């Protein structure tokens, strides 16, 4: 029963996460609620994620998640998490190959170090936690699969996603859910919540070691009726398998539970020595956050164009969780995680491979970490993410006196007009109206250096309203009869 329900909930959640990630579900309420089910990007977007008009959906989802976790422990991991689902499937493969069978090492020290570091990075306004947390890595895993399907682009996002996929699958062949028990900071947070949760499977007095719980446990964390609280996901499989009811779901106030009394209790069964080292590592993690953020920020990286809604280069890079959801829903694929500047794992606009579509604000609706704020399409059309630069010495019309007009043809705002010059028309750039969408750079036929390119701006602003025609049409065009 428990396994059937879990199969259902996890399949449904996997489909939901794929649908949001690939833009199949674009209802912003659903996306906001889905995104808020992930602790780290949600913490990064505090307090903006609670703002209207979608704040109530985000708050409801995040509140439900935290309440349920405080009551029932790590159920996100066991009933929802797609990364966990993938590892469980890998474990089945491992069992078929005869590799599986050992529980993952429940290292408390490294885990709490990673959690403390991630939280410290959050507090220091750095999103470097994205290398560790499951959500960003899962997004990059989806992105890497999509890149394989589309044959590119292969960049930092692809390699990080592939590394994560290989890592969780290969380790799970032998140690089920090694990543969940050794790395994932969200998992560690949920583990701490489970320690105080009143509703969970608890050890009973088992006299008879029949081994059924052990073979039912997807994490191999129970044997002889004893549960390892460091790894347990509260998935209830062992309770369902136990013939004597020794292992069973029970409801007990946290303060009345026996804790810290060895593996039989609810606690982690740490010795004083272990406890001290865990505390030391946690403090070290917390202390490392700020220096790491300083170090990363000090690296002098080339300014790049970031998506509209990112507000500016620095703000975007600080908040972006590098999950790649925005790049995934981008219809022109101008947004890629294969960039060269900034933090190369974070999406940026590459105008040689596409342009930012004027009538599109898809990426603005999917960001889980508040790095890309939402603008309705009317406002987004005016957001200036860069400014075009025209090099006349490279331009076909200026340098070779041939008609081209590719840039003006593509320009959605009238920032480029064609003016007569001799026998041809030449492009003239009106910077005030330019929004840096890169349509001109993408259309420019000059190779290898384009004659018109978008230069990034450090801080986004609003451009002047698009060109409106002020002249009346030529008299000949106004007549209503046939002019021939």
């Amino acid at each position, binding site marked *: 029963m428990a396994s059937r329900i879990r199969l259902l909930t996890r399949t449904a959640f996997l489909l939901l996460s794929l649908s949001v990630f690939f833009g199949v579900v674009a209802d912003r309420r659903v996306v906001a609620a889905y995104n808020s089910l992930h602790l780290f990007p949600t913490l990064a977007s505090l307090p903006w994620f609670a703002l209207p008009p979608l704040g109530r959906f985000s708050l409801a989802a995040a509140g439900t998640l935290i309440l349920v976790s405080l009551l029932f422990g790590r159920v996100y991991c066991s009933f929802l998490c797609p990364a966990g689902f993938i590892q469980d499937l890998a474990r089945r493969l491992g069992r078929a190959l005869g590799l599986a069978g050992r529980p993952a090492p429940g290292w408390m020290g490294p885990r709490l170090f990673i959690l403390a570091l991630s939280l410290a990075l959050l507090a220091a306004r750095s999103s470097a936690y994205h290398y560790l947390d499951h959500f960003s890595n899962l997004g990059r895993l989806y992105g890497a699969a999509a890149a394989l399907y589309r044959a590119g682009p292969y960049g930092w996002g692809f390699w990080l996603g592939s590394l994560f996929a290989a890592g969780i699958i290969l380790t799970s062949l032998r140690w089920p859910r090694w990543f969940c028990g050794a790395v994932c900071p969200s998992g560690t947070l949920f583990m701490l919540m489970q320690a105080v949760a009143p509703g969970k499977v608890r050890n009973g007095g088992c006299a008879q070691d029949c081994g059924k719980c052990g073979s039912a446990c997807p994490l191999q964390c129970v044997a002889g009726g004893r549960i390892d609280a460091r790894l347990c996901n509260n998935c209830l499989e062992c309770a369902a398998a136990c013939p004597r009811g020794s292992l069973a779901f029970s409801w007990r106030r946290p303060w009345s539970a026996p804790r810290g009394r060895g593996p039989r209790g609810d606690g982690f069964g740490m010795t004083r020595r272990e406890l001290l080292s865990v505390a030391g590592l946690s403090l070290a993690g917390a202390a490392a956050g700020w220096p790491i953020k300083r170090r990363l920020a000090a690296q002098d990286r080339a300014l790049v164009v970031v998506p509209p809604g990112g507000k500016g280069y620095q703000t975007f890079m600080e908040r972006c969780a590098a999950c790649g959801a925005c790049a995934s829903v981008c*219809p*022109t694929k101008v947004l890629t995680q294969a960039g060269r500047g900034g933090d190369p794992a974070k999406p940026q606009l590459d105008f040689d491979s596409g342009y930012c*579509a*004027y*009538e*599109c604000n898809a990426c603005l609706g999917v960001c889980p970490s508040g790095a890309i704020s939402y603008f309705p399409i009317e406002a987004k059309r005016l957001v200036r993410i860069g400014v075009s630069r025209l090099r006349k010495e490279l331009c*076909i019309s200026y340098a070779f006196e*041939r*008609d*081209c*007009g*590719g840039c*003006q*043809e*593509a*320009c*959605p*705002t*009238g920032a480029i*007009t*064609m003016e007569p010059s001799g026998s041809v*028309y030449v492009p003239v750039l009106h910077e005030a109206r330019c929004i840096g969408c890169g349509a001109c750079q993408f*259309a*420019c*036929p*000059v*190779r290898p250096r384009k004659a018109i390119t978008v230069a990034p701006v450090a801080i986004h602003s609003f451009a002047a309203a*698009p*060109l*409106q*025609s*002020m*002249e009346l*049409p*030529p*008299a*000949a*065009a*106004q007549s*209503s*009869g*046939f*002019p*021939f």
Partner: protein
Amino acid sequence: MEITRKNLIKLGLSAMAGGLLPPWLRRQALAAAGQPGKPRWPDLVAVRDGSPADMFDAGIAALGGLRRFVKKGQTVLIKPNIGWDKTPPEAADTNPDLVGRVVAAAKAAGAARVICFDHTVNVERACYQHSGIADAVKRNGGEMRSGGDRRDYRPVAVPGARVLKEVLVHKLYLDCDVVINVPILKSVCGGRVTASLKNLMGVVWDRQYWHGEHLHRCIAEFPRLRRPDLNVVDAYRILIEHGFYGTGARDILVKKMQILSADPVLADSAGVRILGRRPDRIPYLKIAAGLGVGRIDLERAEIKRIVLKA
């Protein structure tokens, strides 16, 4: 015969007369008698003051009906301009009612399949949807196809081309039996005017090559590969300024006109006149006429003018 100056001139003159006379006589004879049994149709039909769909019905009837162009069981490609993510009132894409009516007429003429696509400039799905064309085509029994997959394009040589020697062309344009070109008339700067000929840029993969090499020559040379069988120029609403995209209501003029012709150059020449310009000032039209793609001399073409009363 002794070669003297006198004889040489005589010989030259008689050779010229011998070469030129028979075609001239034939044309005279044809003009006098008409082709026996076959009615003569006008070179160009211009319609005004009706809805786009009604103007097409009237215009195609004057051209001898669509059955003249579409035979039973054929595959017909309809090529409208769907390049831009804009709505019908913005006049950047061909009027969807017109496209729908052309699809229906082709179906009624016995076409086995009526296919429609464009290699869009903006995001294809958005263009197809917001232009209203995908909906109009499907409603009338046609199929929408994608123009965005490079694997659908084949390299072909353009006969007699100087610049556009080889070009990647969509397989539908090469393989279908009949091409009906349904552009919208616009005034733009680089090509100065877009209508039938420039609309064919939507069936090739690499448009940037055209812009980069010699836009006018490429536009003029491409139809030598395959000339559309029928051109229906939508001039109901026309953009007269700020090119392809248009930036506001002031750029749009409601002309309520339509031009139908088998000759894309002739159709475009009429379109240029509607925009208040001169066809011989549009470089690609002049080059195309020189290459024998079509004729630019509206004055000597047989034109049927139809005015619909609402």
